[in-house]
């Protein structure tokens, strides 16, 4: 079980109303070692993310799962009926619980004003369709930069399993080892911005530690199970 957690993949939510396009983006993401969930509309994406018109934490609405629903990146088509990818982007950026999740927009049309509009609204990247395998390598850097919040939940489990001082996890000295882990994430990509986000991560880690008891039971299981 320790190995499974150490190798946990990044989770991408892909939004596209077209069936063959969803199939393709799913394959591209899986080939690039991402865990993938696909939905066919912006509305369903927001439902999956736990947003029902009000701020809600990502974990709240995962009723059918016994773990938190944690999405590391959202990739969405621009042109969709009802809620467009741009509308979805806006809703995500307006939500205090979701705004840190990187968003990538896909479109089959190369319209500079559209691209700029999305980037100005907070999109991290814009891909022209058909999306290529090489585009997938652009996703991880965005995830790593915004990883702090989710990484500490992950790290809590990693620390308890691999660290012999698990009983001292509320000890301030563990904060530095936590920051070190951020610099050397399990997924092998080193990103200098991780160091600069370390301070805010430390602050958040203290908050996470205070909530340690609220984390799902599996994090407090014996290390060497």
């Amino acid at each position, binding site marked *: 079980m320790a190995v499974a957690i150490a190798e946990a993949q990044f989770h991408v939510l892909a939004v*596209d*109303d*077209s*069936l*063959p*396009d969803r*199939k*393709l983006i799913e*394959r*591209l993401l*899986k*080939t690039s070692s991402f865990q993938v969930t696909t939905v066919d509309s912006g509305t369903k994406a927001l439902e999956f993310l736990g947003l029902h018109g009000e701020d809600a934490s990502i974990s709240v609405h995962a009723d059918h799962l016994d773990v938190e629903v944690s999405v590391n990146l959202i990739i969405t*088509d621009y*042109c969709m*009926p009802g809620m467009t990818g741009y509308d979805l982007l806006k809703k995500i950026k307006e939500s205090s619980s979701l705004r840190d999740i990187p968003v990538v927009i896909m479109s*089959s049309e190369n319209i500079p004003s559209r691209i700029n509009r999305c980037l100005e609204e907070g999109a991290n990247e814009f891909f022209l*369709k*058909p999306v*290529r*395998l090489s585009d997938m390598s652009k996703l991880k850097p965005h995830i790593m930069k915004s990883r702090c919040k989710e990484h500490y939940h992950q790290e809590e489990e990693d620390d308890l399993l691999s660290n012999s001082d698990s009983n001292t996890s509320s000890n301030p000295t563990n904060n530095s080892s936590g920051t070190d882990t951020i610099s050397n994430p399990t997924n092998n990509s080193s990103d200098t911005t991780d160091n600069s986000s370390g301070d805010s991560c430390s602050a958040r880690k203290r908050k996470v530690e205070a909530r340690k008891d609220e984390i799902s039971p599996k994090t407090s299981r014996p290390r060497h199970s």
Partner: protein
Amino acid sequence: MAATMKLSTLGYAASMLSTGLLDEQFQKLLLLQNKSDPNFVAETITLFCEDGEHTIGELTKRLDKQCVNFDEVAAFVHKLEGGSASVGAKRVKNTCIRFLDFCKEKSRDGCLKTLDTLRVVFYEVSGKFKDMLQLEQQQAEATK
């Protein structure tokens, strides 16, 4: 049982590529297929064929009216354009692009004429896709 397409199927695909029915995107699809998802290409092109048929039906219905909602029509065409680009159905994609221009101009005649072309190119490629999948299926059964 090889997870990759059989040689004869690849040959079929190659002829579609050389006649301009498909573009290099289809080759990328083939490369994406692997042991963990050995039916990826078959499933994707099947989805494209089913989706495309449904779209052409909707377009026919919507253009049959005197008062056409060009935004709705464009939305369907756009979706098919995306799907065709994803599987490499070049002629379908290009026809959709022209179709979208007529939608912007709100030209019912232009749309109707392009829909006729779309039907031809779509059924041409979807017919070949179905033949290719059937061939693959037959070969798979023959080698069991």
